[in-house]
């Protein structure tokens, strides 16, 4: 029996080690376990998770202990004459009813938590989140702010095909150019949708994961308790760069948030002024090409590739009919309005940027059409002229 005892205590040790490591894991930034997060509900979700872990591991440990006992005690060398029994109604009733009771016990807190998580009423403010292949658009419905947020990790850090990737920063693949800034202590409703395929907006610290579905609007909410930076990712497979569309939320006190809103609005007015200026003047070929290259690399190269040769279902622009044979107007219209899997850029890019990128595509990579497109023409096309 002493062997049996040793094995049993070994098993207990093993299970308690697993559990111990779950408990001991640094709660803020665990690489082992869920995070308790920074909302009341994320804490409740975490508590429920730990409760299920403990109960279910206890049940599993019982089963494993019984198997281990049988394996040691009832091996042929120890028990040459097997028993003959083949059922026991009492036992069978016990192990039908006891699991049911455990499940009922677990379901109860889950129901009330779920009802609260789904109650988006009485929100203090609303942010609309739109998933677009492979970036997020945020629109603050109460303060007329709108911006696009995309991965800011430079490609040199992840392109390691030649084994020469640059050193990776701490927030590798979890950093963006424009953070979502939100006030703490406010019930924030998120309206979540998508432009193209299904994405899923997931911020683990809020216990919020909601699918972004093209043509439909989903609602969810969070009330953040602590200021800080919270990182999340797109959780639903959405195409080639699904792993490259993170989310970063910066939660700040209300006063700081108000300042941020003001700053954003001022920036927006300034950008509009510059855009109007740019649109009003006439651009030279060099300027258009220089600006166009920048826009192209930032917005188009993920699909059409820097060399314009396309990739898989993303067509080449080098030598393509639209970029060489069709008129510049048709080309620009396609970029403004989008087509099937090609996103529309009419809202995201200024008239000058659109003019520049279309010019660039018509003259780069040997597409030497010699065409230039001016911002003024883009404005006319947008107006349907």
């Amino acid at each position, binding site marked *: 029996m002493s062997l049996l005892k040793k094995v049993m205590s070994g098993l207990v040790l093993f299970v308690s080690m697993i559990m111990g490591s779950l408990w001991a894991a640094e709660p803020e930034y665990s690489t082992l376990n869920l995070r308790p997060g920074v909302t009341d509900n994320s804490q409740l979700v975490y508590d429920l998770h730990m409760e299920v872990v403990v109960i279910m591991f206890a049940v599993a440990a019982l089963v494993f202990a019984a198997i281990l006992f049988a394996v040691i005690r009832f091996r042929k060398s120890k028990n040459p004459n097997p028993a003959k029994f*083949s059922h026991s109604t009492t*036992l069978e009733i016990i192990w039908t009813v006891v699991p049911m009771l455990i499940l009922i016990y677990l379901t109860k807190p*889950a*129901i009330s938590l779920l009802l609260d998580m789904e109650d988006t009423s009485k929100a203090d403010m609303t942010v609309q989140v739109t998933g677009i292949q492979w970036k997020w658009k945020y629109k603050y419905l109460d303060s007329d702010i709108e911006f696009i947020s995309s991965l800011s990790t430079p490609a040199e850090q*992840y392109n390691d095909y030649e084994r020469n990737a640059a050193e990776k920063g701490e927030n590798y693949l979890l950093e963006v150019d424009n953070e979502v800034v939100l006030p703490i202590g406010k019930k924030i409703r998120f309206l979540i949708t998508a432009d193209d*395929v299904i994405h899923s907006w997931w911020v683990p610290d809020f216990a919020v994961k909601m699918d972004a579905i093209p043509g439909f609007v989903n609602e969810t909410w969070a009330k953040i308790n602590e200021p800080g930076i919270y990182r999340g990712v797109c959780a639903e497979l959405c195409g080639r760069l699904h*792993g490259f569309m993170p989310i970063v939320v910066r939660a700040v006190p209300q006063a700081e948030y108000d300042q941020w809103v003001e700053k954003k609005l001022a920036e927006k007015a300034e950008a509009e002024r510059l855009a109007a200026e740019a649109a009003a003047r006439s651009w030279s070929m060099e300027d258009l090409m220089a600006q166009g290259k920048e826009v192209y690399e930032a917005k188009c190269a993920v699909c059409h590739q820097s060399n314009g040769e396309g990739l898989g279902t993303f067509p080449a622009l080098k030598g393509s009919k639209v970029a060489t044979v069709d008129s510049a107007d048709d080309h620009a219209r396609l970029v403004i309005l989008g087509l099937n899997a090609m996103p529309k850029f009419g809202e995201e890019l200024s008239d000058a940027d659109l003019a520049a990128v279309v010019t660039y595509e018509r003259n780069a990579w040997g597409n030497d059409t010699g065409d230039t497109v001016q911002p003024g023409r883009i404005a006319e096309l947008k107006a349907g002229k």
Partner: protein
Amino acid sequence: MAHDHHPTGLSRWLFTTNHKDIGTMYLWFSFIMFLIGGLMALGIRLELFQPGLQFWDPNFFNTLTTMHGLIMVFGAVMPAFVGLANWLIPMQIGAPDMALPRMNNWSFWILPFAFGLLLSSLFMEGGAPNFGWTFYAPLSTKFGPPSTDFFIFGVHLMGISSIMGAINVIVTVFNMRAPGMTLMKMPMFVWTWVITAFLLIMVMPVLAGAVTMMLTDRHFGTSFFDAAGGGDPVMFQHIFWFFGHPEVYIMILPAFGIASHIIPAFSRKPLFGYSSMVYATASIAFLSFIVWAHHMFTVGMPVAGELYFMIATMIIAVPTGVKIFNWVATMWRGSLTFETPMLFALAFVVLFTLGGVSGVMLAMTPVDKQYHDTYFVVAHFHYVLFPGAIFGTIAAVYYWLPKWTGNMYSEFWGKIHFWFSIIAVNLTFFPMHFSGLAGMQRRVPDYNMMFEGFNQMSSIGAFMLGFGQIIFLGVLIHCIKGGKGKATDKVWEGAEGLEFTHLPSPAPYHSFEQSPEVK
């Protein structure tokens, strides 16, 4: 045997209507698919060994995950079970062959064409399907590569093959049982397979419907799954999972049956609670139809729907628990030995239980919102599929191989295969629980450094696991070529069932020419 002659060479296999030949072809086909799907998994693990993109373009990475899933589900697991059904059901119910032998031939020979279509897409312009084995719209409809149409026809063919296989099982079992074998005397493998066959007949047409709607959305101007035309992408998910959840049980019920043969045999004691096993299997099958949307807790369902699907899903734990407890009770006070089939069956029970534990966790809607679409889910379903469906199949092969070939396999190498596999399977899939909980989402080719340690463990485990299956291949070939000498007719001391008590080893080409009497 008087009319034991049959064509030889290629035409034997092309034109055969014999359940054993067809079973053999199914099993080898599934093994080949298992290796191809496994290579793709290694491609995935290679890229994930460290942060950064070292090997594949992210689009090809998506192709790898998609094809790995499709091939393992439809090419490896399902045909393996049909192969086992072909070999075993006639022998276990005392029949000479399957009831519909020509259809049997056809349902096998469709498969190479189905997978030829699917695999050929790898070489097409625009690449192979890259939208996940769940092929959610609109990623697979409006945004799918041109080869998606080959995928659609491939799935249609696989579905036809499965439905024909299922019809064959049902007709055989209901018409060809030996006199005296009442339904409640049927071996558990037969029971679990009949129930599986009903699941197949009910859900494969649903899958066919889903891919047909995809086809018309792609080419004939319909908008089933496109909001712009009045459709709904979420409807795709409802339809897919109405197929997909029963499919999960299609991939596990026969393994339940297998464990219910092996554990009693090596415990030298009858199966504990035979009738509750039958009822538990039937209730699992029934419940599998009414829980599908637990795969969709983040699509924004009405809260009443979420509550219903949570509670219905939790109920499945009850009959599943009954099965596990019954297996343990079967061993209790038995006289146990640990030959390779028993080792795999025990690993099946233990690791399937772990998969069940994470299953209950995933069923709880509020917490699932954190788990959903992370590596935690990947860990969960690999625990039920690899140590579940695949260990179950491997256990069955070791258990019945001496009956099939007449030779004993090498116990030594069988055990090496076992220990290699069990260490590797846990090394591969256990760390995924942690990386998932810590926030790593599924289906990404790259990740932050905080997930590196767990991913390295998984990758090392995966390569070990792949290597372990080469050992299996060696053991199989060695056994077929003569192995460790002749097997006895009973093969195992504790073996029960007509195939062991009434047939010689190897079993004759036509199983029972005269029905045995079952008392």
